[in-house]
């Protein structure tokens, strides 16, 4: 159920992305044309001291105004102009996109005080802030929650800039507003997915940690219990006081064991939810989730996704967790070296029954002495690491019937790769 919603949301997000692209295209065109015009304008001005002015110039000016007006009319962002000389800031121009965005008609907008358009539900603090900024002749830039005429909420990215006359006095304000609702929604979805994954990872880490801890503690508890019971056996009927003390030791040992047992059953791993998966889609989704980190760290991620790969059977969240873990490890490995930027993720068919995912970095590589311990519990080469990531990843991959391995690249960096058996029921 939840999944269906996500895919339909995804479709919506795609559509909005497409819309945004065409919008960007249009904007780019308008910008180019405006630039051309500026250049031509400049050329003309230079030629203006000659006598070739007159009607020609007039005509060109007309044409310019026409194109600029047309461009504003065609823009998909809402554009409006406010008269700054009048005390009630009336709107003297708005383009069709503005009407579409706000839901108000031309009649309702033109001559209207701009701030009244926000409706009774608007956040007065924000409005006051905007008023203050523009009354000082400064620009405003911000994202606000707004209401259409019908009361519908939408997120608007608003930019208001003063327009000055030749003397520098503010005569007008020009505003541009963009509907960012869909973009915000998409970001929110990505954020939610990332949160979900992080939660699963945290719970997984905790469970694995408790399990390891339980093992470490149950070892001495076993020894203590056996020593105490051996002692009792040796005393037979002698030293009743001592025998009693040994019994206390035994009882408390078992109490400790019970605590551990309960703790362990509390954190029992959820059964993985296996479903047919497209490894390329999974890879793409995972990369989307971590993209902000990659760009923030100034790295590039390259995808080489094999075509026509068969479906696999697996738990989406768990496999994403593995991939995410490998990618963030690689990013960390490349952190220190300034000249390594590229991270390569490759999906391929290893043989007829196995799909392989490789994560190849150009970082510092793995020291030979760490190779063996790499997947062990609590082994870490990071100062703040827990040493759980790779060991959990390996147990996830193995639960899927695959293998997770690592090797150093011949040139530089390391490659981590895992295999997953092909889902035989759903071969393409």
């Amino acid at each position, binding site marked *: 159920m939840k999944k269906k919603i996500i895919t339909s949301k995804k479709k919506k997000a795609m559509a909005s992305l497409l819309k945004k692209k065409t919008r960007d295209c249009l904007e780019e065109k308008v910008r180019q044309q405006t630039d051309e015009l500026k250049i031509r304008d400049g050329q003309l001005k230079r030629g203006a001291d000659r006598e070739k002015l007159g009607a020609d110039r007039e005509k060109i000016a007309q044409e310019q105004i026409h194109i600029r007006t047309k461009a504003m009319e065609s823009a998909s962002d809402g554009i409006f102009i406010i008269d700054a000389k009048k005390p009630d800031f009336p709107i003297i121009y708005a383009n069709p996109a503005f009407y579409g965005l706000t839901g108000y008609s031309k009649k309702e907008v033109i001559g209207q005080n701009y701030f009244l358009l926000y409706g009774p539900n608007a956040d007065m603090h924000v409005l006051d802030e905007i008023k203050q900024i523009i009354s000082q002749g400064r620009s405003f830039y911000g994202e606000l929650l707004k209401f259409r005429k019908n009361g519908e909420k939408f997120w608007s990215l608003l930019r208001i800039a003063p327009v000055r006359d030749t003397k520098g006095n503010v005569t007008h304000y020009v505003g541009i507003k963009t509907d960012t609702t869909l973009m915000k929604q998409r970001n929110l979805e990505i954020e939610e997915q990332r949160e979900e994954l992080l939660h699963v990872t945290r719970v997984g880490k905790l469970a694995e940690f408790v399990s390891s801890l339980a*093992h*470490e503690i149950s*070892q001495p508890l076993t*020894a*203590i*219990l056996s*020593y105490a*019971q*051996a002692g009792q*056996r040796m005393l037979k009927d002698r030293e009743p006081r001592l025998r009693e003390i040994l019994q206390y030791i035994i009882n408390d040992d078992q109490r400790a064991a019970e605590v551990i047992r309960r703790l362990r059953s509390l954190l029992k791993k959820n059964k993985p939810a296996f479903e047919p998966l497209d490894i390329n889609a999974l890879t793409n989704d995972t990369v989307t989730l971590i993209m902000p980190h990659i760009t923030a760290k100034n790295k590039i991620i390259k995808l080489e996704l094999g075509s026509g790969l068969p479906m696999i059977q697996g738990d989406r969240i768990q496999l994403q967790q593995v991939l995410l873990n490998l990618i963030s490890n690689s990013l960390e490995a490349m952190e220190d070296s300034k000249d390594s930027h590229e991270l390569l993720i490759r999906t391929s068919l290893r043989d007829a029954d196995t799909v392989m995912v490789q994560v190849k970095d150009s970082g510092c590589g793995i020291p030979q002495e760490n190779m063996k311990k790499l997947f062990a519990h609590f082994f870490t080469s990071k100062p703040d690491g827990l040493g759980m990531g790779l060991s959990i990843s390996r147990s996830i991959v193995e639960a899927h019937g695959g293998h997770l391995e690592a090797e150093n690249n011949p040139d530089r960096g390391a490659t981590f790769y895992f295999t997953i058996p092909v889902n035989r029921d759903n071969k393409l």
Partner: protein
Amino acid sequence: MNTKNAIIYVVDDDASICKSLSLLLNSNGFRVETFTCAEEFLAFKYPKLQSCLVLDIRMPNINGFALQGLMAQRGIITPIIFITGYGDISMSVQAMKAGAIDFLPKPFTEKKLLNAITLALSKSKVLNQKQTEIARIRQRINTLSPRELEVFQFVAQGMMNKNIASKRGTSLQTIKIHRGRVMQKMQAKTVTELIHLAQKAGITSSID
């Protein structure tokens, strides 16, 4: 339980576990040998006694399950009691399927351990007897000539004398003589008994 003729092996990479179990089982009258890794255990010269192995699952290099496999390969018939700090159900199922006597999550009480050991030793006794018997049959088989062994195998497959004769291209009389000697050397009074012996020794492989 007769503890004199029995030996208990403990394999656990934790030296404290080895020592404490050794003391506990000693105090119950058992002879105990402990090993902190599978390799050490495999290198041990096993005395011909009832025995059982108390085996930890998680160990570096060769883990408990791997040792179980190696023992099966090498014909070491000591029954196994698994002990582990990671007690999950799937693991215990795996262990029991592979023929373990019991699966004890750590820490376990003396009582639980002794119950499992009693069970394991009685199984060991049966297994030892069976092994001795097989060894005895094998010894008799070793006294057969190649031709007699061949006839023995045919008879074990349930072939009639004349069929064996035609297959071998020899006379019925010759086969009868061979067969008589096989019965005598194998100390079998009837053909049924002979077939039983063949089955016990695993002699059913056909020649063609």
